[in-house]
């Protein structure tokens, strides 16, 4: 017997959480695009998506975060800090890849300087992940040794029932348990069978790729140019990626005051590494794409013992020129044989 959350009780859960002061967040449609956003009612949620267009990363690491306000007076410059918005939150309906992405980025945001914006939100957010029963041709979590029902990064894992009337509840963390205690009376014990998780085929051999990437000879391989010749250098893959975490700090404002902001930045952009002198160490798009792959599958694992990729496939799904990590690692897999 396991706890079951039936679909028809979800609305009451949302109400309960909200009345307990939690912000309830889930996948919703916003002007023809799916995104995780705060909801007032469960009816707003779109839980039938394979995956929302945008990842839950931005709930922890928003595209533009104010850090401090400065005012310039004649004699001094005054600053006041911005905090991340506080208060408990619950993300209902995350996917395993997205939740894993958070766990992948946790050490990055905490290794030398503990990024308070990230961790405040992490600590105050319960992540309720729903295991995937469907996938599309771009999904590749299994290639990254994750799965449609990976628990990494999640506080609660919900497994859809076979009859599609609810979810089996697996409480993974204390934070998750705490949140579900508030709705304990809305859950039912039951033995309804869970639907099978979707079978996501393995598309490349991540270990073999890692070995190939570690080989210094391959840094200057012609491969990089060939694989990226059609890359147009936009940032959509990096911005939609649940693990890409680069940011830029910009002062925005007028002559007398302004706000220092932490904005997403992308290694795909030519300006990303542009020096003041005009010299650009990554002068070509192929060097930038190489950096992205190297970072995710060589440098990052070297430092944090995990690939900086959770296999969501958004990079390929949204690429204007049909590129992406899958193709590149498939090709590297071939080369490494």
């Amino acid at each position, binding site marked *: 017997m396991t706890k079951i959350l039936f679909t028809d009780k979800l609305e009451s859960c949302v109400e309960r959480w909200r009345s307990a002061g939690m912000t309830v967040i889930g996948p919703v449609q916003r002007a023809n695009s799916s995104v995780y956003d705060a909801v007032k009612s469960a009816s707003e949620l779109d839980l039938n998506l394979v995956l929302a267009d945008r990842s839950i990363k931005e709930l922890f690491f928003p595209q533009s975060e104010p850090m401090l306000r400065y005012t*310039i*007076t*004649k004699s001094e410059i005054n600053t006041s800090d911005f905090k991340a918005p506080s208060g408990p939150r619950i993300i209902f309906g995350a996917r395993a890849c997205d939740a894993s992405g958070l766990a992948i980025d946790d050490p990055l945001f905490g290794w030398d300087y503990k990024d308070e914006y990230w961790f405040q939100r992490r600590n105050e957010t319960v992540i309720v992940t729903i295991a995937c029963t469907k996938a599309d041709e771009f999904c590749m979590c299994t290639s990254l040794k994750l799965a449609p029902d990976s628990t990494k990064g999640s506080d609660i894992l919900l497994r859809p029932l076979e009859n599609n009337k609810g979810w089996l509840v697996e409480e993974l963390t204390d934070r998750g348990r705490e949140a579900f205690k508030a709705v304990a009376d809305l859950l039912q014990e039951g033995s309804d069978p869970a639907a099978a998780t979707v079978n996501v085929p393995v598309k490349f051999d991540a270990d073999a790729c890692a070995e190939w990437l570690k080989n210094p000879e391959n840094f200057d391989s012609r491969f990089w140019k060939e694989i990226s010749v059609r890359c147009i250098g936009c940032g959509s893959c990096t911005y939609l990626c649940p693990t890409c975490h680069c940011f830029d700090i910009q002062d925005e404002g*007028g*002559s*007398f005051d302004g706000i220092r902001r932490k904005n997403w930045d992308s290694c795909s952009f030519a300006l990303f590494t542009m020096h003041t002198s*005009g010299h650009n160490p990554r002068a070509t798009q192929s060097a930038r794409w190489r950096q992205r792959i190297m970072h995710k599958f060589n440098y990052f694992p070297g430092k944090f013992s995990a690939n900086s990729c959770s296999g969501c496939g958004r990079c390929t799904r949204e690429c204007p020129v049909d590129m992406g990590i899958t193709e590149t690692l498939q090709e590297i897999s071939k080369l490494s044989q």
Partner: protein
Amino acid sequence: MSKIGVFICHCGENIAAKVDCTRLASALGDHPGVASSIEYKYFCSDPGQESVKKAIRDNNLTGVVVAACSPRMHEATFRKACAEAGLNPYMCEIANIREQCSWVHNDGEKATDKAIDIVRSMVEKVKRNNTLQPIEVPVTRRALVIGGGIAGIQAALDIANAGQEVVLVEREPSLGGHMAQLSETFPTLDCSQCIMTPRMVEAAQHPKIRLLTYAEIESVDGYIGNFQVKVRLKARYVNKSTCTGCGECITKCPSKKIASEFDCGIGRRTAIYTPFAQAVPNIPVIDKNNCTYFKNGKCKICVKSCPLDCIDFGMQDEFEDLEIGAIVVATGFQVQNNALYGEYGYGKYQDVINGLQFERLASASGPTAGKIQRPSDGKEPETVVFIQCAGSRDPSKGVKYCSKICCMYTAKHAMLYAHKVHGGKSRIFYMDIRAAGKGYDEFTRRAIEEDEAGYLRGRVSKVWLENGKLMVRGVDTLLGKPVEVAADMVVLATAMIAQPDAKEFAKTIGIGYDEYGFYNEAHLKLRPVESSTAGIYLAGACQSPKDIPDSVAQASASASKVLALFSKEKLEREPVIAVNNESTCAGCWGCVLACPYDAIEKKDIKDRSGKVIKRVASVNPGLCQGCGTCVTFCRSNSIDLAGFTEKQIFAEVMGL
């Protein structure tokens, strides 16, 4: 770190009465980057300027904002003061809190708030000003004078007499312009040709003047000190270099009934002709439209008559390119066509003529050899009615402005008529008598008192022919009664208008013009002889209606401007010009197309081996006038305008 000095001028009471200057000074004193903020009664005064200089030295100011009157007033004053104190003059800006603040607002509180905004915004601009150095451009010391009337001749002679080269271009076959057509001139009644022709000859023979008659300006390119002018030398069909002006051809020419332009249609000329007997140069031209040979392919009488074989029907227009440093435009005026006053009967009755035609009648060299005769039957008119303001000061049918010379020449006409036709009666309908000028009012008094010119204050409503008389009906507003005069001749004091092609020509040479086609001066009062385009000056009636003394004075003034320009080998120009960032320029050439001055060129950027890597835009500082149209076009913000940079404007907006 900026150290800006803010100087708040009370302008006596002009600013201080409305703007709380103490509050303003203290607000700016608290402004970031302001090192000194002081107020004073008159900063433009000597002690005021001294205090600015002192503040610059004492505080090592990096920039200055003078909050005072319009920059159009004293920007130059304060920039000069800054330069004297060792600060680059372009680090000084004016915040206009008089014309655009204290004078126009009633509420002192709000005016002060606005003044604070204005000055703060300007401080933010100045913080981002760059030191600029005046641009030096070489000067071609050769002047072009366009128009061979009295103004053009005077300008050409003045410049040439100072030792500088002049090219004098006249589109008619001879020098002379309108002045050569006049009989006597007011207020002295000396013979126009007697004083004009010697000047024409002097100009033609001056070693420093190159005379190009029967020539027109095709195009003007370049900029002050460096104009490239293309001149079309119209085909005269007479060889200039061999013709001696013997006049045989003119005498023999069978087409003799062509209305003479010089005689305003009253006299006749031949198809091969000089406009008048004293023409300079005395070389005839063939009027292609009226020449029998050109029309029918037969005749060639002139060819046969010419002892030196100068006639060449195959002659073509030629073009000549000139390098010019400065241009004087003296293209003159035209008289309005009076046919637009149907009620006056001009064009309908032969004996209704205009003032210029009367000049020809009165001229000793004219078609009647100076006898006043009616064009219709050659009779001496016993009564002549002169109608002033026939076109001038008439917004409904004519022109709004006063043509300035008509009052005087009408008085002169009345006097000439009285002198030539004893017992002749003149009646002058006038609105006002405008006779301001040396000896002018005395002149009109003389006409009235000595020569019995009969002035009637009022307008004429109708002229009609009745029993061989021109009946003129008008009103005498002083008596408050209608009057009718039976006249033998009516003379209309026609409005002076711009040349019919004045606007087109202005575009060719690149100067501004007003709604009438008169050329705009750079400043009505302070720069009355300069056009809006640097290096192009104005003389005579092309700018506005003028009499001879005014035209000559302006011509000499223009000449002095030209000579001042020619006094140095190089010219200093305001450094407010566009500058391109070649590293970000995408080379789309939008700026090249948008530039009104063709000041942007394409430049190849080469690598070390000389291979062209890319082509970018490059601004020619000599040509650029600093409008900034290119800057706005540039999508990548590569081009910027010194003095009004993107950074500066941005700061101004952000400073508000």
